[in-house]
């Protein structure tokens, strides 16, 4: 059932590739705007790069949250899922992972290319990719709570950013911090371990919280 959920969501995403591409291009455009606004000074860009890439990843991941439940909610599939004997938390976990595969993974793959634009050293590119690989699933998992709470509300898109962005802050701090530490020549394992810890904690708690939010939103 869990795998079915992921497969189904991926299939739906593949049928509508423009959605996936829009998120990815949003990410690319936001990152490309910064050199245009602050100037092409390479030293400055290099120090800014981790933060810029991470903030853009946060925004891109957040913008696509609305799609996580809303289509299923509109056509009634979500209610059937609530009624199914399967644990709702598992289904939500499946949906969050599918969301990550559709929006998070393309960002992770694209990040090194954008890092080159910012003249990051090769090692920092690896650290950036690793940090994003660990961190983006956390964004999808926490985002699932916000998406579930704002389901079917007017102005849900803006509201979800108010709810979710403050909760993204720890991931942002350590995600960007890992790359900065690497560039400063300090060890970055502590940062990655902490993001890993966030991932484990949110894997356990976020699906559960999102499932109860869905019950609240649909009752």
């Amino acid at each position, binding site marked *: 059932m869990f795998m079915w959920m992921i497969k189904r969501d991926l299939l739906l995403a593949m049928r509508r590739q423009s959605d996936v591409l829009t998120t990815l291009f949003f990410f690319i455009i936001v990152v490309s705007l910064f050199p245009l606004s602050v100037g092409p000074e390479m030293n400055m860009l290099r120090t800014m790069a981790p933060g810029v890439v991470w903030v853009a990843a946060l925004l891109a991941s957040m913008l696509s949250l609305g799609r996580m439940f809303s289509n299923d909610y509109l056509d009634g599939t979500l209610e059937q899922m609530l009624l199914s004997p399967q644990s709702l938390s598992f289904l939500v976990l499946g949906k969050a992972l599918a969301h990550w595969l559709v929006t998070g993974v393309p960002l992770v793959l694209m990040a090194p290319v954008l890092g080159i634009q910012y003249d990051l050293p090769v090692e920092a590119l690896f650290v950036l990719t690793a940090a994003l690989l660990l961190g983006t699933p956390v964004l999808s998992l926490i985002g699932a*709570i916000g998406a579930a*709470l*704002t389901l079917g*509300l*007017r*102005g*849900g898109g803006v*509201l979800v950013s*108010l*709810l979710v*962005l*403050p*909760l993204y*802050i*720890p991931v942002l*701090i*350590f995600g960007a*911090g890992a790359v*900065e*530490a690497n560039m400063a020549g300090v060890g970055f394992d502590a940062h990655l371990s902490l993001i890993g810890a*966030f991932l484990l904690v949110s894997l356990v*708690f976020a699906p559960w*919280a999102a499932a*109860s*939010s869905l019950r*609240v*939103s649909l*009752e």
Partner: protein
Amino acid sequence: MAINWFKYSSPASFYSLAGKMIPIFVFVALILLAAGLYVGFFVAPTDFQQGEAYRIIFIHVPAAWMSMFLYVVMAFWAGIGLAFNTRLSSMLATAIAPTGAMFTFIALWTGALWGKPMWGTWWVWDARLTSELILFFLYIGFMSLQAAIDDPRRADKAGAIIALVGVVNIPIIYFSVQWWNTLHQGASVSINQAPAMASTMLTGMLIMVLASWMYSIAVILKRTRIIILERESHTAWVAELQKKGVM
């Protein structure tokens, strides 16, 4: 005699109890406020390092404490409301949020006013300032979520979930910000090494803390009463109040 512990969990009996309690808390708050301000402005000595400007501490510290404390209280009542489906607990949580946000805002504002003469800047990305700012965002998120939902029961429960998620996150955010700050080695100033305080300063501050406590209780009870009236407007007892004209 068995005591009915849950008598006041009914909105109707809580309404009248709160009505009786509000004047008491307002009175105590006013007395404490007058005493605290008197001690703060006339009794407490001038600080030898910070001069007179330090006196903002009598507003700033109580506001900062209340802002954090009220978030936990709010999440507690919201959680009780979610777990036991008690209407009054959720109403109380909703009533606490604006007061908590106000204290957070006061703490940020007075902190900036204090920072300017002391550190020469309105704002530093110090761990405490940053986490206070994020706390403000959490309050705003809670209130705007509740405001966006029309059905009050759904608003209560959704608010409870986001408040509880926030409470779990507060320590994580706080330590992240603190480690981030030490990693950056940025803030050259810190509030941590406050000089040992004169005892009158401490007394004045504690009186002001109690005063803001009493004020919060009074305002929150008042707001709860209004929420009760709004939500129970269809019931017989509210109609009776209206007829008597005692609202």
